């Protein structure tokens, strides 16, 4: 641990300094490539209108202005339903949907990975096959199912179907396969119940998988306007409200660019938060001994 404080000391004795340099060069090259779109999206939000429509488009902003945000807030203030309502709706759907999916997918994955029960393998095969199906075509029958439950225009419509995600289960199962059986047996001998093993041993040990699953779910729910299922104004989501703003054409272009930045902040924030809290804390607790 102490060694790390000496920056000049090479961390990996097996590699030459040239190798270190190479790694940095590769990462910088790709990093720049990846960062260009983000830099542009950020700059876009601060560009005055004439710069937004300049051709060819520039990546950087030359005369930064906050007018786009002012416009956006003015438009937000004019909306029929208080704007905080849209934010609450989206946060609510995203939070419940993500947490629920994490729990349900993990529970299913745990028994599929670690219990031998009749039909388990067939079930898993069926679930993985279903991932491959074209979602667009099932949209209409799914709508009819939801409509049959009378869930249209309630929060149940976007949340409940999002809970059972085959991709999440598949991912979780693959991670849980990596937990040594001996660890679970030890817990069982010490008197742990199934639920205890699941919450206290399995879940903490697959924390890195949480990150991936959370990202999948947040991406899907946060950006989804849900306009298929919800039509009451007070239940509408943030992406829907914002897309209404950007639909205003040229006059709203500035506000539209600000909207883009606004929508990106949350997924990026969640990534950075979970990266530092979930991934980094796992760094020295590898289970595959």
């Amino acid at each position, binding site marked *: 641990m102490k060694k790390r404080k000496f920056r000049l000391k090479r961390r*990996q004795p097996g590699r030459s300094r040239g190798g270190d340099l190479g*790694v940095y060069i590769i990462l910088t090259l*790709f*990093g720049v490539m*990846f*960062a260009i*779109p*983000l830099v*542009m*999206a950020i700059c876009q939000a601060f560009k005055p209108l004439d710069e*937004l429509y300049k051709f*060819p488009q520039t990546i950087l902003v030359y005369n930064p202005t906050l007018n786009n945000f002012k416009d956006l807030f003015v438009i937000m203030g004019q909306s029929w339903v208080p704007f905080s309502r849209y934010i609450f709706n989206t946060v609510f759907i995203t939070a419940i949907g993500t947490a629920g999916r994490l729990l*349900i997918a993990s*529970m*299913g994955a745990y*028994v599929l990975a670690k219990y*031998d*029960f009749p039909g388990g393998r067939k*079930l898993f095969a069926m679930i993985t*096959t279903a991932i491959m*199906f074209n979602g*667009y*075509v*099932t949209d209409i*029958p*799914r*709508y*009819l*199912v939801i*409509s049959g439950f009378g869930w*249209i*225009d309630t929060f149940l419509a976007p949340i*409940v179907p999002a809970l*059972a995600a085959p991709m999440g289960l*598949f*991912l979780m199962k*693959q*991670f849980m*396969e990596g937990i*040594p059986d001996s660890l679970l047996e030890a817990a069982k001998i010490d008197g742990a119940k*199934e639920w205890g093993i699941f919450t206290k041993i399995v879940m903490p040990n697959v924390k*890195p998988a949480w*990150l991936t699953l959370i*990202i999948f779910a947040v991406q899907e729910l946060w*950006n989804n306007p849900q306009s298929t299922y919800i039509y009451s104004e007070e239940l509408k989501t943030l*992406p829907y409200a*914002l*897309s209404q703003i*950007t*639909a205003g054409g040229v006059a709203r272009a500035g506000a*539209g660019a600000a909207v*883009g930045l606004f929508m990106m902040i949350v997924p*990026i924030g969640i*990534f950075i938060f979970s*990266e530092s809290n979930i*991934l*980094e804390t796992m760094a020295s607790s*590898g289970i*595959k*001994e």
Partner: protein
Amino acid sequence: MARKRKPRNLRRRNAITGYLFIAPFIVGFLLFLLKPMFESFRMSLSEVTIAAASQKGGKGFVMETITTWKESNYYQAFFFDPQYKTQLVDALKEMAIQVPAIIVFSFFIALLLNQEFKGRGFVRAVFFLPVILSSGVIVGLEYNNALMSSMKGAIEEAGSGMNITATLETVLRTTGLGGKLLDPVFKIIEAVYDVALASGIQIIIFISALQTVSPSMYEAAKIEGCTAWESFWKITFPLVSSMILVNLVYTTIDFLMRTDNQVMTTITHKVTPEMEYGLSAAMAWSYFAIVAVVLGVLAAIISKKVYYYE
């Protein structure tokens, strides 16, 4: 007797726990995935009309299918459609090049990002950005905003503006190494930006997998005189191999289900403006069958090589 009964009881207990834990998922799976899938299969064999449910006092819409089992004309209609066939073949060809490229690339980047260096969190976030940018807001807003699409064009221009590809291609061609053999290589280089942008999730999955490998294993290997190269192939690779399978499945599906995929565009187009529900369902089912076969073969090969920790 007592000994004989014990395993049966354990089996039964396992079964009960198993079903209890998986029940919530199964319910959701049956209702919102399997049922719609089979509905759509029925649609592919039927004539479909959609009617407002308000006539019957409900909310939303109901679907009325008139089953016409006698001839599966939807399937015939497009299977002999030459355009659909070429689209399909093109998509599969491109997949064969891009998917391995994405997996190798993301594995490589994940290995780099798994090492200790200053600002690692920041660099990881940068590599994750394309996920947010490509699947998120910008794509969603694109329809409403000409600005965003012009921005996307500018980004692509900036990405290829360095012209590494063109230079490399001329160099290789003039040395006489060109020809058919190198075409896939050029395609990969040309698509490097695409590959890089499509690798966000795969990088995260690989980093997550690398995190579960204990550092003490590498220490032990080093003490035994293992070189870094050896410990990569003997420790890292086997322990992460199950995630290669995950990434393979994810990447293939992501690639074949992408909205800019020609086949997908055709199918989606049939749903929304053309309202050809039956035909689109038939197309989706045949596409599904092809994807399932491709993926099934790939997964069967790879999963033989996957090492599961005992």
